[in-house]
């Protein structure tokens, strides 16, 4: 009987080659995927740690009546450097959204130019909202002496 086809040896070699090719490709893909996963996970956790390590406070506020500017002293007593924006509401409105950097352990004065609200004769009571770029907030009130 004249039978044509692959011999079992060649078939085995071909199967092994196919298994190796597919296996190595899958291995390589999984390795790259897990390395990327590790990187993105650690980056996410690091960012989250920076968020929970932020601590800052409005240490002092003064108002320059001539320049109609509010001086806000911010103290970063946390563990990381921060960038903050300040928004003022109340009898006057104003903001300084320039992402003022404050290194940890530092005190920085931020100036906020104010515009008196409609119908307000004199600026008396102000609400100060300080927002870090990592979305932490600190609030303060100020009564102009």
């Amino acid at each position: 009987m004249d039978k044509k086809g692959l011999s079992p040896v060649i078939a085995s070699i071909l199967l092994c080659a196919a298994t190796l090719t597919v296996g190595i490709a899958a291995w390589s893909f999984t390795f790259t995927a897990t390395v990327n996963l590790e990187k993105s996970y650690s980056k996410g956790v690091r960012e989250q740690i920076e968020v929970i390590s932020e601590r800052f406070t409005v240490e002092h506020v003064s108002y320059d009546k001539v320049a109609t500017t509010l001086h806000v002293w911010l103290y970063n007593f946390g563990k990381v450097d921060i960038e903050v924006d300040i928004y003022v509401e109340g009898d006057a409105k104003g903001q300084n959204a320039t992402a003022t950097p404050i290194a940890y352990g530092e005190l920085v004065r931020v100036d906020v130019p104010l515009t008196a609200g409609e119908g307000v004769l004199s600026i008396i009571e102000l609400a100060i909202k300080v927002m870090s770029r990592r979305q932490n907030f600190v609030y303060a009130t100020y009564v102009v002496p």
Partner: protein
Amino acid sequence: MSTILGMLIFIGMLFTCVIPLFLYVNQVNTFYNRKVTEMTQFDQDREKEQIDVYAYPLSQSSNEVNVYIKNRSPLSVKIVRVWINDDKFDRSIEIPAMGEGTIESIIIQLETKPFYIKVMTARGNTFSSYTNPLYYTENGWSGGMGFVIQVVILANPEATRFFKVKVTGPSSFTYETQVVKRPHESSCLAVVTVTLVGWYYVTVNEGLISIPVTPESVYVDFSEPSHWVYANAVK
């Protein structure tokens, strides 16, 4: 043969990719939890800080102010700054737990005005001096803890209400403060420290509405340094 190879590759993937990923994530999570614990401890320490601050001039006409600090907390407290009105004075003094210390010789510009003194701690707490405000006049220093007007506002227990207490007195003394009466409270209190002997006038407002006050004016002197004033805001 190919089955064995496939199995080997699978086991290789398990040991070189999946298990290291699992271990790495565990390690990162442990690090995160440690940071959370550290910050929680930091916040608790900050809450525990309790110091009494007393600022006083060295003499009746001195331009030097000392700040005495009594630490009443179980932690040592580091003072990083002293504020006198809008001027800051960087200092670094560590007050041991339940200990005391004095920040000495803060030179100020003498002007006829009130001086408000506060200190800042490294943990981010601010403590005002009990002797605030200190006054400097032509006759020298005055003020301190002597003269007090206590304003009691009586109100219905319902609702949160906001009152503005204003006290005016001699030498253009004006003090304004906002008092909040919270739900289930039937009164609230404003304590106003005044510095000079003389007549003081008290007004209490709720928005634009004036609340009747009894008595409307009090005479503060050394024989009667403390007065009680009552405002009736019961509806």
